[in-house]
């Protein structure tokens, strides 16, 4: 494969946006869960809720900081690498991202400061309010990003004028049915991610026989929540499929590796799609009408195959096909773990079932993998279009960008991101390993908001306090 500027730019965007999404998908869910914890603490007065809250707040801080840092790059990249897209869709995407910055970033920043350092200075109800505002900020941010991306998937409410997308109906853009199934899908993914990370941490402590009260809270809340949300996620995933069938037949055909029009259609469960010869090797297939049933809720509906789409409009088939199956596979494993775990919790036997605790512990990467592969399906499946059906990715790139320049920037981002990611995850690991300390460290008097990652220090200090006398 030739390393053209186009390919390198796509790789760079894929790399930076994939890196970025890991952190928001974690923090959106975590912010909501922190709000619930704080409310429970206020309501019941149980100190364990408070300890769990303080503990997860530190982890939230590091992940939030990495999300912010990697997000700034995204705001620039549309202009640097995709100047044609930026120029043409700026009148629509620009205002949407402006709303994100204006409404979400400042909400998050201001109330996050209170969350970190404001507890001694504000009444409890206001602290709870601040927690809710941070959660609202992260959610708003997700909304505007999904509004933006949904418009690229199914462009609505615009007219073309002088080679630019000019919005003529914002209500169509903001109330697009596509947006309102994709936004909940992402929100649920974030909540499930948060739930599984929390449950996995609880399982880890249960396996180590430490922090019993906290581990119990984490396991219960995490697994119960996941057990309820995962079926709902299936519903929204299905609704997403419906918009794809209606609006993006080429993506659906690739996801299903469906080469020919079928009526009613069969469903390929697993296969190796042979793009060259337009067929599937080693296919495990459900007979008709399962394909029509899954894609169109119908026993008789015809489904479009890649044959009836000009090959120059095909997405790469393998990536959407496999990433979709990986996503669904992760969902299935999570569902089994969450339901089995919830059952054992209900029977008060989970702490004795080491098998299930290990399974819960090892399933913490699954929601991240599912989120990433879900986005791969959506974004790679949209190719070769950047604005589906209207603007090709190849025509969206900065016209004069050279392969050498794109290579330099790709390398710089890879190096810088790997570097900060390695240290960030190391600090999160260290926080998790240390566990929720019994001592409720109050922030120092001249504490400093707006510094997400510095929460880690508090733990560092409390460790230092602990070690110095021991050393003497």
């Amino acid at each position, binding site marked *: 494969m030739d390393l053209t500027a186009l390919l390198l730019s796509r790789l760079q965007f894929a790399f930076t946006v994939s890196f970025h999404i890991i952190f928001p998908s974690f923090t959106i869910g975590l912010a909501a869960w922190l709000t619930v914890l704080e409310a429970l603490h206020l309501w019941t007065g149980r100190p364990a809720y408070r300890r769990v809250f303080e503990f997860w707040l530190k982890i939230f801080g590091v992940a939030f900081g990495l999300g912010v840092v990697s997000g700034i790059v995204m705001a*620039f990249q549309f202009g640097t690498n995709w100047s044609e897209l930026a120029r043409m869709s700026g009148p629509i995407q*620009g*205002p949407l991202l402006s709303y994100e910055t204006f409404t979400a970033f400042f909400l998050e920043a201001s109330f996050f400061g209170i969350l970190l350092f404001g507890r001694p200075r504000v009444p409890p109800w206001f602290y709870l309010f601040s927690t809710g505002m941070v959660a609202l900020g992260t959610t708003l941010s997700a909304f505007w990003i999904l509004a933006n991306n949904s418009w690229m998937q199914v462009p609505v409410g615009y007219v073309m004028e002088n080679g630019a997308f*000019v919005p003529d109906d914002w209500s169509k853009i903001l109330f697009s049915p596509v947006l309102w199934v994709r936004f909940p899908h992402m929100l649920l993914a974030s909540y499930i991610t948060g739930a599984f990370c929390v449950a996995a941490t609880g399982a880890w402590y249960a396996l180590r026989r430490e922090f019993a009260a906290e581990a119990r809270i984490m396991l219960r809340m995490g697994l119960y929540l996941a057990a309820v949300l995962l079926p709902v996620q299936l519903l929204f995933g299905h609704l997403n499929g419906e918009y794809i069938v209606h609006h993006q037949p080429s993506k659906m055909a690739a996801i299903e590796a469906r080469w020919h029009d079928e009526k009613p259609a069969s469903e390929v469960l697993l296969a190796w799609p042979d793009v060259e010869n337009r067929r599937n090797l080693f296919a495990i297939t459900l007979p008709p009408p399962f394909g029509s049933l899954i894609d169109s809720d119908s026993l008789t509906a015809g489904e479009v195959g890649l044959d009836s789409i000009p090959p120059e409009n095909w997405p790469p088939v393998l990536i959407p096909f496999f990433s979709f199956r990986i996503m669904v596979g992760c969902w299935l494993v999570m569902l089994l773990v969450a339901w089995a775990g919830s059952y054992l919790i209900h029977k008060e036997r989970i702490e004795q079932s080491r098998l299930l605790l290990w399974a819960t512990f090892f399933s913490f990467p699954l929601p991240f993998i599912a989120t990433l592969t879900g986005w791969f399906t959506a974004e790679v499946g949209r190719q070769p279009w950047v604005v589906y059906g209207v603007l090709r990715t190849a025509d969206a790139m900065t016209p004069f960008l050279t392969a050498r320049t794109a290579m330099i920037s790709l390398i710089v981002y890879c190096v810088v991101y790997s570097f900060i990611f390695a*240290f960030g995850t190391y600090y999160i690991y260290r926080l998790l390993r240390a566990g929720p300390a019994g001592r409720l460290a109050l922030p120092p008097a001249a504490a400093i908001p707006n*510094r997400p990652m510095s929460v880690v220090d508090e733990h560092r200090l409390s460790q230092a306090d602990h070690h110095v006398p021991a050393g003497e």
Partner: protein
Amino acid sequence: MVMFWVAILAISILLYVLLDGFDLGVGILFGLTHDQTRRHAMLSAVAPIWDGNETWLVVAGVILWGAFPVVYATLFSAFYLPLLLMLAGLILRGVAFEYRYKTERMRWIWDAGFAGGSLVAAFMQGLTVGALVEELPITNGQYTGGEFGWLSPFAVLCGIGLCLGYALLGACWLVKKCDGDVPEAAYRLIPYLSVGLLAFLVVVFAFALAENLRVVHRWLERPYLFVFPGIGVVAALVLAVSVRYRRDGPPFYMMALIFAAAFGTLAISFWPYMIPFSITIEEAAAPHSSLAFMFWGAGLFVFPLMLVYTAISYIVFRGKVRPTSGHY
């Protein structure tokens, strides 16, 4: 509507330059000392507010995209490498803020990242402004300069100039915010930095005249522009007197005024161009439906809230930073 967004953009960029300017400046000065106590005091003086300061860069970026998409597309793609290096610098510097206290052994890496990242970011910002003043090669609204079309001795000079300017602004901030021996060290640096900045301004003017830059003609056409350098000179005099008598408060405000005057000079000599002298504000503006959509929510209601928030965080963290207190 267009003028409203020009005003909001101008306010956001000016706020960014003033606010992130001083903390980038502190970052640059950070590299000049090895004394751990001083380094700690310098960090504490910017730690509570740097993150909010940097958000104004994102604000300016997205306003540019939403309200003036042509400018966003043209400039960001033209300044591909400078922006890449600026972002890398800002990332390393932002992370360094947080990571340096996690380790003793690796601290030198984060310290180098902090000083180096600040320096690179400041330099790249100055360089892009310089390249704009000198005019980017643009034909028919398309950038035609290639990979290094922005690179010129003049642009490099402006990069160095902005580093000096930010360092000076940072020194004035340290004088205002710090106790102990940091202000005295900053006071001693201010004259050198000022002379350096002055020398830079003289060279830039000579260069502009020698190269016969179009900006110079603007000055002759619009003599009222000299009001701004006038303000700058007065501010510089007050600055000199305050430094002479070691008055901690005024230097920062005077330096900020000098920056504002320089910003005003540039903005008005570019007017009505957004990319001098090829794309005007009217040509760059997004369609009315976009500007109105942004105006009736983000512009009218949320923007004032953002200003209030910024004001509040400065009010909460007003006064001198005590070297003994602070987060660490």
